[in-house]
């Protein structure tokens, strides 16, 4: 039997080999670079996102071998090339920055647990970090200059600025080989300390009083066999959430050093922040440039960057998917003309297929009954009679909502004059049609979650989430190809896959997250609230409610430990909220001004919306007082929450 490759199933950012790099660059969505701030090179840049938000991939694109590949093939990687040139990472066909990624997930935190004074731990931290930075710079410089690493390091020379010569000396000296060897010794010495299962002997163990390497490499000239390389070091620290709190603070302080003459970026998940910072707004100021990736992805579309309009993030996702799928589609299915996303954009009429005769008369009867012979609605009804298929169903359902709303206006307005099509346009809108589509799904299980637009929105600005969903879509396409059919994925199949993916995400919460059951508990309550208000006959918040909100005042109270101690359930809420926001299960928007108050709005992850039959726009929310939310969390829970459907009766019919 044959095996087809699913191009969505492998992440490429972690791949360090040359072969993996080409594939990574070919499928990378260059638009992400538009989310970066103007100021990239002088001040420290802090990138934050949930897991799978694309931090590591972003850094990968700036590593020296990626920049070399992009610079060497401007035609193949045109989007990336243009943007890298715009930001100044590539100039005259050569990398201008020596991009170096330093992973912070290599056991630094363990240094806090050696049972020694914090001062000693910090010194070891700096020494180990210095060793890793030196090693990474040596490796990147070798790559840039075509030297074999580590064999040819002796040919590499670092010429320091006068003021930093002494620092470089302390790190070993001026040539690549001695620097690398000293770094390696430090690494292995500390490695052995950390890994020791027997009591440690501290004789002869030393550390660094400060982070030396950033200063040492500031303004350094890199030479190979005497020739100067025109590059600026860019040190990119990845996964700061893995550091201990003290280490993170120490590193961020070191990065903020104004004397530094090299670029430094730093990424972390929200989980690096304390719950206070997650629910609050992170630490302010300090001269850092903070880049919250999801927030920027949600809000930057349409802005002008480097003379170009930033495309919606969803368009970038669709682009990424099309690139990933294009070769497999061509190889397996001979599909060279049609994109992956086009195979998702099926004709809406197909959704109703043979069920027209079953559904439309019922909807029609309902609307006629509600209109109850009033002349006022006759024009609308006549118009609806002209339509057929899904359009007809949608219109009838829309009219049902609009007429119910209309009837409830003051009696005075209900003069029995016929309303026109223009009036319908005035009283309805795309959001009501969206609600109508959702109601049709609810009433008749007609598909709703389908089409490339909705599919890309379901990603909640998270690349990984999007790739998982696309991968499942592609599985079905492969099955169709096996059957010698074209891989059009009908709306019903897409809707089913979305539901299944949403369900899997929901069930994974306790498997993947600390306090997962508390998080599920909170999300269940928010979803229940949203569902109730979405499915009211008048669709009051059309297309529906997908979130909740806490007033900024209540939020401040929640942040206060003394208040939390007083209110039962407050601690659980605090933890669950921080966990849910940190993992992108809820997205928080601070300081939204509505109804004479200021709010922290909490939207459900769009993918989870599917499990709870909610719409996927960022629309309505229903606020709740802190006491109510705490009371939710104070309810006893037992067993597995993953199987709970909400509300229990909604889909029984």
């Amino acid at each position, binding site marked *: 039997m044959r095996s087809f490759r699913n191009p969505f199933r492998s992440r490429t950012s972690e791949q360090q080999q040359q072969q993996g790099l080409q594939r990574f660059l070919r499928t990378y969505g260059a638009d992400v670079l538009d989310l970066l701030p103007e100021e990239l090179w002088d001040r420290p840049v802090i990138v934050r996102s949930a897991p799978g938000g694309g931090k590591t991939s972003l850094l990968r694109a700036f590593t020296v071998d990626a920049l070399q590949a992009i610079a060497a093939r401007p035609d193949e990687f045109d989007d990336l090339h243009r943007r890298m040139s715009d930001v100044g990472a590539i100039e005259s066909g050569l990398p201008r920055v020596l991009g170096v990624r330093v992973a912070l997930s290599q056991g630094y935190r363990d240094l806090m647990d050696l049972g020694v004074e914090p001062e000693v731990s910090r010194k070891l931290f700096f020494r180990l970090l210095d060793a890793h930075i030196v090693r990474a710079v040596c490796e990147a410089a070798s790559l840039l200059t075509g030297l074999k690493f580590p064999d040819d390091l002796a040919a590499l020379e670092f010429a320091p600025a006068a003021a930093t010569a002494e620092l470089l000396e302390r790190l070993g000296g001026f040539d690549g080989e001695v620097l690398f060897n000293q770094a390696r010794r430090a690494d292995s010495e500390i490695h052995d300390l950390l890994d020791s299962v027997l009591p440690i002997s501290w004789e002869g163990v030393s550390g660094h009083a400060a982070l030396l390497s950033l200063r040492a490499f500031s303004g350094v000239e890199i030479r190979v066999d005497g020739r100067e390389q025109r590059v600026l070091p860019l040190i990119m620290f990845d996964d700061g959430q893995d550091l201990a709190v003290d280490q993170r603070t120490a590193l961020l302080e070191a990065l903020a050093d104004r004397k530094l003459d090299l670029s430094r970026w730093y990424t972390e998940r929200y989980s690096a922040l304390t719950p206070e910072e997650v629910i609050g707004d992170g630490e302010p100021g300090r001269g850092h440039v903070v880049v919250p990736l999801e927030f920027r992805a949600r809000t930057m579309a349409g802005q002008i960057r480097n003379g170009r309009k930033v495309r919606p993030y969803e368009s970038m996702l669709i682009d990424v998917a099309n690139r990933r799928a294009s070769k497999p589609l061509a190889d397996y299915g001979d599909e060279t003309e049609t994109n992956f996303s086009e195979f998702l954009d099926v004709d809406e009429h197909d959704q109703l297929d043979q069920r027209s005769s079953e559904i439309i008369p019922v909807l029609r009867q309902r609307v006629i009954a509600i209109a109850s012979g009033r002349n006022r609605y006759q024009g609308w009804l006549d118009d609806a009679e002209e339509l057929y298929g899904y359009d007809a169903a949608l219109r009838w359902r829309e009219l049902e909502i609009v007429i119910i709303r209309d009837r409830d206006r003051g009696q005075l307005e209900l003069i029995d004059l016929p309303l026109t099509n223009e009036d319908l346009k005035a009283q309805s809108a795309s959001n009501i049609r969206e609600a109508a589509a959702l109601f049709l799904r609810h009433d008749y299980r007609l598909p709703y979650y389908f089409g490339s637009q909705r599919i890309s929105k379901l990603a909640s600005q998270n690349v990984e989430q999007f790739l998982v969903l696309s991968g499942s879509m592609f*599985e079905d396409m492969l099955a169709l190809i096996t059957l010698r059919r074209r891989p059009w994925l009908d709306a019903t199949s897409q809707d*089913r896959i979305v539901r299944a993916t949403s369900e899997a995400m929901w069930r994974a919460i306790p498997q993947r997250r600390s306090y997962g059951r508390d998080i599920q508990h909170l999300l269940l309550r928010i979803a229940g609230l949203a569902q109730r208000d979405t499915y009211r006959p008048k669709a009051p918040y059309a297309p529906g409610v997908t979130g909740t909100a806490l007033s900024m005042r209540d939020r401040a109270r929640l942040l206060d430990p003394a208040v939390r101690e007083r209110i039962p359930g407050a601690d659980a809420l605090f933890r669950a909220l921080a966990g849910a926001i940190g993992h992108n299960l809820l997205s928080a928007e601070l300081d939204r001004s509505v109804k004479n108050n200021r709010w922290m709005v909490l939207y459900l992850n769009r993918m989870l919306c599917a499990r709870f039959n909610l719409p996927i726009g960022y629309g309505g929310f229903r606020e709740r007082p802190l006491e109510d939310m705490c009371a939710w969390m104070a309810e006893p829970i037992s067993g597995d929450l993953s199987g709970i459907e909400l509300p229990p009766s909604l889909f029984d019919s």
Partner: protein
Amino acid sequence: MRSELAERLLHALMDWDVPRFGAEVARLQMLASLKYDEYGGYRPGVKFAENLARWLEQFDSAEREVAYAFVRERLVFVSDAEMSHLIDIAYPDELEPRLLTRSASDSGVARHRVAAIADSVDFRSLRRRTLFLGLSDGAQLDRLRRASQLSHEQFSQDYLIDAEQAARLQAELAAVLTDQKLPGESAFRQIFLVDDFSGSGRTLIREDDDNIGEYKGKLTRFRDRLADLQATGVVANDHEVGILLYVASQQAVEHVVDSLARVGLGGWTVDVVQLLGRHIKVDQTDPPTADLCHAYYDPSSADKHKADTPIGYSDCALPLVLSHNTPNNSICLLWAESSEDDGLGRKALFPRYERHHKDRP
């Protein structure tokens, strides 16, 4: 047949929608490439997928679901790699511990002192004075020998080892004992009878239908041969006999142990590397499949060596396939092919190569 065609054929046969089809084909692909395609009973070029389609075709659609569910959930296929692993661990984990125990009790050393025992000349002598006899080709003694790193001259493919070979092995033994200065007479003290599989145990030992109270089978035949070997001094008087089976059912083990006791051979040991518990028997865990076996059983499959066997010889009801052949203790749906001419034209999923076949000269 191209595998793509076989997959489309499957789709035509099974009432699956596209996603189910995709998922099932992915499962089948996984196990076909890992195991099923290597089945030794397939003609050259034939793969599992097309055979599955051919097999399912004979059932009506409700039966097909039952048959497919059996393959999906219950079929036990012991691949070549798995069988090799069983052989590789048989000596270090089953047989050598027996030798260590015996050597420890001979010399009065505590059993747990394995390094000391293994180093002793007594143990090395006992180990060299161990003889391995194959009860069938499936014993794969070559592999067992390599895994044990013992001498060629301790293995014989034929459990009824002839006098000439026995004499030769004994002479070799004598030479080695002298050469390595190991104690003990040049006669074998330990015998292991080796087979790959036993489903009912009845090939090994069974009561004679014609003479109640009499037993026949390979083990009783060997008992008779053993007497000669002992008489000629090839086998020592203080010999012990052990039976090693790579795969065996619980039913077989109980039958063999019980029968051995009845014929006064209760001292013979039985070791099984992969035991198949009763919980895998199809008639107990999967009645719909068992019913299907009865419905599709073709009496023309019976011969003088075995009676009607819808759920397998001796009603073993095994869901088992070994990569080189399917045992006749497995359910007939797995292995029994019959011709259209004098039978019902049944198709098997893993056709069995019959050692006794009425059409074969």
